[in-house]
């Protein structure tokens, strides 16, 4: 079961991803202050939070891209920062805001990701074709990734995260800039993956999408987990968006920016 745990609680060996007391400081700004989170195996968890809540920092530390100042990360019971190689094999990662080796073509980039993961050539070749087809990128397989649109870039990176058939997919903003048809296709792929026993963590700030797609949700703000559980538990009868605003706060009553009205005679 997913819950906000005390820092003293041991990591849940049954969870797909188990974070305990994760801290990260950049200079004098504390980005993540003691995040505890269990992602149950077989769940599709949405990580939601306002801008600057620490979502990307948390996910970077949960996938081995950023070393936490304190705390532990377990992937299916394997300590990520103690034995990174074993844990990273089970993880598929889509980071947000990082580059790709974009002077490669789409097919080359997927081949590169597959070979780096130690797959053999026939497997890489077959999965590359399957993923290109699933992401609707077969026609652009020989185009350099640098010339892809933002949505296509997101899709090729997502395909690269899946090529080694990981147990856990950690995806930072996977639907950003992706067209609605592709987004629906990706949601289908993720649901099927979860049905087959995989676990997915997606970050997003689109509450509606999380409510429709995810089985679980964790709300993060100011570097803390405010609430976590199944979508039904967390939203407690309200819409997820209302519950989110209630948890995070900061919603303003109307007013302000009167001068922005074009009908005013100031301009």
């Amino acid at each position: 079961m997913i819950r906000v745990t005390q820092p003293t609680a041991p990591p849940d060996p049954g969870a797909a991803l188990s974070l305990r007391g994760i801290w990260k400081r950049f200079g004098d700004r504390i980005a993540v202050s003691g995040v505890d989170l269990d992602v149950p195996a077989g769940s599709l968890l949405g990580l939601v939070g306002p801008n600057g809540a620490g979502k990307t920092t948390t996910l970077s530390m949960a996938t081995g891209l950023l070393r936490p100042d304190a705390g532990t990360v377990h992937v299916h019971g394997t300590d990520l920062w103690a034995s990174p190689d074993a844990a990273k094999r089970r993880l598929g990662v889509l980071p947000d805001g990082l580059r790709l080796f974009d002077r490669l073509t789409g097919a080359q980039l997927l081949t590169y990701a597959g070979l780096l993961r130690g797959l053999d050539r026939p497997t890489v070749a077959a999965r590359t074709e399957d993923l290109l087809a699933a992401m609707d990128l077969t026609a652009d397989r020989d185009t350099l990734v640098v010339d892809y649109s933002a949505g296509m870039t997101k899709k090729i990176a997502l395909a690269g995260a899946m090529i080694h058939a990981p147990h856990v997919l950690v995806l930072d903003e996977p639907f950003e800039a992706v067209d609605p048809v592709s987004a629906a296709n990706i949601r289908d792929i993720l649901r099927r993956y979860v049905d087959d026993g995989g676990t997915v963590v997606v970050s997003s700030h689109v509450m509606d999408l999380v409510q429709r797609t995810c089985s679980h949700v964790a709300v993060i703000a100011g570097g803390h987990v405010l609430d976590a559980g199944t979508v039904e538990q967390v939203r407690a009868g309200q819409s997820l968006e209302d519950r989110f605003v209630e948890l995070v706060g900061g919603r303003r009553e109307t007013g302000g920016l009167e001068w922005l009205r074009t009908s005013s005679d100031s301009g």
Partner: protein
Amino acid sequence: MVAHLVRLRLTLLANALRRSVWRTIGLVLAAAYGAAVVTFFVGAAVVGGRTDPVLTGQVVTVVGAAVVLGWWVVPLFAYGLDATLDPLRFVPYGIPHRTLLAGLATTALVSVPAIFTALAALGVALVWTTDPAALAAALLGAVGAVALCLLGARATTTLLAPLLESRRYREVLMVVAIVPLLGLGPFLSWLSGGLDKNGGSVTITSGDGLSAVVGPVAAALAWTPFGAPWALPAAVHDGAWALAAARAGIVVATVALTVLVWSRALARALVSPRGGTTAGRAAGLGWFGRVRATPTGAVVARCATYWLRDPRYSASLALVPLLPAVVVTLLVSSGAGTGLLLAVASLAAYILGFGLSNDVGYDSTAFWLHVASGTPGRADRWGRVVPVLVAGVPLVVVLAVAGAGAAGRWDALPAVLGLTLGVLGAGLGTSSVASARLVYPVPTPGQSAFTTPHGAATATIVAQAAAFGVILVLMLPTLGLGLPAILLPSAALGWVACGVGLGTGAVALLVGVRWGARVYERRLPELLSQVSAFA
């Protein structure tokens, strides 16, 4: 608006310093260096002005012309212009064109090189302390010269920016840049010839020989936009008012022209988006289909692809075959000995080996793929080294053989081969450690060659000096054997140098890659954090 932009520039500078101690140290070092250079020039000008203001003025004209020319040309090839106030960033604000131009021109003055150029330009006016009219003219000339430096740099880079975005033009331009270098040889031999005729004693006080050489050069340069502002006080000193007016006219006209060119080019750049070229395509898997299906093979294929497809790599690749051409032409034109031909191969080996020393920096944040997939250090390090080794060894061997043949020194070939392959191995080994340890900012993939990342120049120089020092120390035994073998000459010693060089190269490469792999595995997330901080 001008004040706004200057304040913005200063705020950006202060923020950059606050973010990194190294940038502060770099700035202090640069300031100290600049102050020393300025003190030297001003001191020389004052001393020279007391003894012979006319001759000193001519020297100032020649040196000053070189400085202005440097401001115009160097950013095109080497460091680029500081990109913190990229004009394109002001597009959304709808600032009037003239205001933006004035603001950017003023902020151009707020940089270490600009400030010291201005101080030096004003300082060397002290040559004319004995003649108040000439002194006033010199100060005016200095202002004109600084304006020419700053505006000219803006004009040339903005005008040629669209050209340099494309790889082909940049490679052509690199070849063109070599041409003045080729002219250097004849110029030097002519200069030394001129000195010899006049007895060869070169001091500023007994400067007959010097003035015989500098006089005509300064006189010619005074009619160019580069020399005119510096030659202005000499004309006033001679009472040649028409000449002074003509030189002032050249300066004013050139300043006006650079402003016009810059303004036009900027206006065009602001409305035409960057890039926008046709989509690149490459059928099939390329190198990925040919390498062994292992992580090492994958990195080899990726690096080989990048060497050919990424302009930042292919530009340095283009330099290697150009080197012999440059050295040969220099030698033939200046009449120096052909012995230097033997050094061509080692120089090429150094460029190739050193080229990898910031490879993680070149990956930029795309490096996350190696971090996320837990790519082993061995695979990452060898993958980067192998393409250079496979292409580089035959290349430098051919250069060494050709060099020995052209110099008529077949006897020196073993020593040259030992030195060359040793330098290649030592360079690659050192780079393998350095790229896991010392990451410094480089232009990000696809960025214009004209921009230089903020604070990169100092870090680049420090890293390059350190790597050069290490490679030099590693090569000392081979050099100690190889140089006598070539100079004496001694065939037996040459073969020993060959063996020692090959051994040094092989050991340095193996140890460097292993050590680099260990450092890499220990610092994997930190490396990503470092390159993320630059992005």
